[in-house]
């Protein structure tokens, strides 16, 4: 008699963690994947800027001004003979640094303040939300311009008083100005979002259940409430990073952000647009390239944000 040929015993079904599921959903979403690729590329360029750039970003060469793109100068040179490719590459480092630092400031202020306001309510809630309301009452960019344009003398004086005069002259303080101006305004939106999330999550049974097994309050907030509120926060942060890149561009374009020769896509644009707009379309690439790069980065963050939104909330997929 023949033995029945059974199939091999079933294996243990793999269990997908939420982050693996998220990655899989992003991989299937083309715009989000493109966005992630652009952002990844920008970060690589920012980190490797000294290797990738072929000249120092501020090296002038008066024998080679206003050159068209060529093998020596891929994106051409500007009126002072600075290599445009190198400046754009170094600009990525400025952009990434500002984006990361402003996001850190937003998170450091918005996450704990919003979580406390939502979880404890009472006077903490009133205080945090009224301050946020005040920040919201101003048109966003106007307030950023106001801060950026007014805090610099204060920061300069402070830097000199603590013996950092060299640093003050070197231009690094401009980064602080931009980060503070964007951070001071940016946390309020995040705090509101976190508060709204915490308000709904803290009533969930698993939060009461965590209290019922004796978990301390701060641990309940950080282990049970916040991780369950994270989806819209991640989406808002991703979209927000695009906004930060754009705002840094605005500030530097208007001359109250990063100052030349510090490389910023905003001040490169301002520099060249101011010089060549009369003779349009002469030297058009000097304006077009930093503009397109900045636009690509802003779009990338927004595509990724949209993709994250769909991946984290599958029920609203369009």
């Amino acid at each position: 008699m023949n033995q029945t040929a059974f199939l091999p015993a079933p294996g243990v079904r793999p269990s997908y963690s939420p982050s693996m599921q998220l990655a899989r959903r992003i991989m299937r979403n083309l715009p989000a994947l493109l966005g992630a690729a652009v952002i990844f590329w920008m970060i690589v360029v920012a980190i490797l800027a000294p290797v990738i750039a072929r000249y120092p970003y501020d090296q002038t060469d008066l024998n080679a001004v206003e050159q068209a793109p060529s093998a020596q100068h891929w994106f051409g040179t500007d009126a002072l003979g600075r290599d445009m490719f190198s400046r754009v590459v170094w600009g990525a480092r400025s952009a990434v640094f500002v984006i990361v630092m402003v996001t850190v400031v937003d998170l450091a202020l918005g996450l704990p303040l919003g979580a406390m306001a939502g979880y404890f309510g009472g006077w903490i809630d009133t205080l945090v939300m009224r301050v946020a309301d005040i920040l919201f009452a101003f048109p966003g960019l106007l307030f950023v311009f106001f801060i950026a344009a007014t805090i610099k003398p204060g920061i300069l004086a402070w830097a000199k008083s603590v013996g950092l005069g060299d640093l003050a002259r070197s231009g690094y303080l401009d980064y602080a100005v931009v980060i503070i101006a964007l951070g001071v305004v940016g946390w309020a939106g995040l705090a509101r979002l976190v508060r709204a999330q915490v308000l709904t999550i803290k009533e969930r049974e698993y939060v009461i259940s965590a209290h019922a097994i004796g978990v301390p309050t701060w641990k309940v907030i950080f282990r049970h409430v916040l991780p369950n509120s994270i989806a819209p926060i991640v989406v808002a942060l991703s979209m927000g990073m695009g906004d930060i890149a754009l705002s840094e561009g605005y500030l530097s374009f208007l001359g109250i952000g990063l100052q030349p020769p510090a490389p910023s896509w905003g001040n490169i644009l301002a520099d060249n647009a101011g010089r060549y707009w009369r003779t349009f379309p002469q030297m058009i690439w000097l304006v077009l390239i930093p503009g397109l790069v900045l636009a690509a980065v802003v779009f990338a963050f927004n595509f990724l944000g949209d993709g994250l939104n769909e991946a984290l909330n599958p029920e609203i997929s369009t």
Partner: protein
Amino acid sequence: MATLLDVKGLKTEFHTQDGVVHAVNGVSFSVDEGETLGLVGESGCGKSVSVLSVMRLIPQPPGKIAAGQVLFQGRDLLKVDDEEIRSVRGNKIAMVFQDPMTSLNPVLTIGTQIGEALELHLGMTKEQARKRSVELLKMVGIPEAENRLDDYPHQFSGGMRQRVMIAMALSCSPQLLIADEPTTALDVTIQAQIVDIVKRLKSELGMAIIWITHDLGVIAGIADRINVMYAGFVIETAPVKEIFANPLHPYTLGLLASIPRLDASRKSKLTPIDGLPPDLIEMPKGCPFYDRCTYRTERCANENPALELAAVRHSVACWNWQDVQKMRGAVLSKVV
């Protein structure tokens, strides 16, 4: 046997925009070591709020424990500081909630969640907690426990999740397990399994249980004693056999009469209790059951009866319980 939990005159209220909701109005009960107490009553009668008050899990505000004592092993839990109550929660008193679908944190694995109490109260390392979690999952009858430890709640069915909740609750070998309608959200066959698991674990571990339910059928098989609650009062308390054989409060009688029976004739209808419980914001000054009672007298409208001893270990809060005892024959004949 020694008294484990002694609740005296507990009053819990909620301050809302519409007024003060008197959810629990001076409830007293006690649980002996190893005893199973059933808390029975309809929705909103204060069952859950009284046990949440015992654990100090009432959200404050709007909730407020206005009066009373909760003596657990002689210590008043309403007076100890936050750190001390946390060392009691999950460690000496543990709780299983009604809806297993929402009582587990969706972003943490089952292993992490069971391990949380072990690491917190017993000071175990992650490794030790993992080992113990596997034992606990086996104890509540989850197959392939080692493999399931890294699964997330959504990968479990409702009945399995309730087993996980029970495993979590029992992780630190509590002296008192509070089960807040643990079978209500489950279908009947799973209900029976959960009841069996709890009964078996009780005989193995010997903890006391407070089992909240509105299903007298479930409680009959598991409780030693039953407290019937209505509108925030305990209106009758007796050993479980006594409650079924000799119900003295008209409300208890009504509850028993409204249980569907398999052996009833197909034409017979269920006997509901007419009307609704009183508005907990404007409590009547007399008996809270007055509006719905078929045994009411003038005295009931003006004076709220306190619990009085009617038989051995059997107390009832009704002015007319002796009349109920004489007249209930027709109702009772349908029940037993």
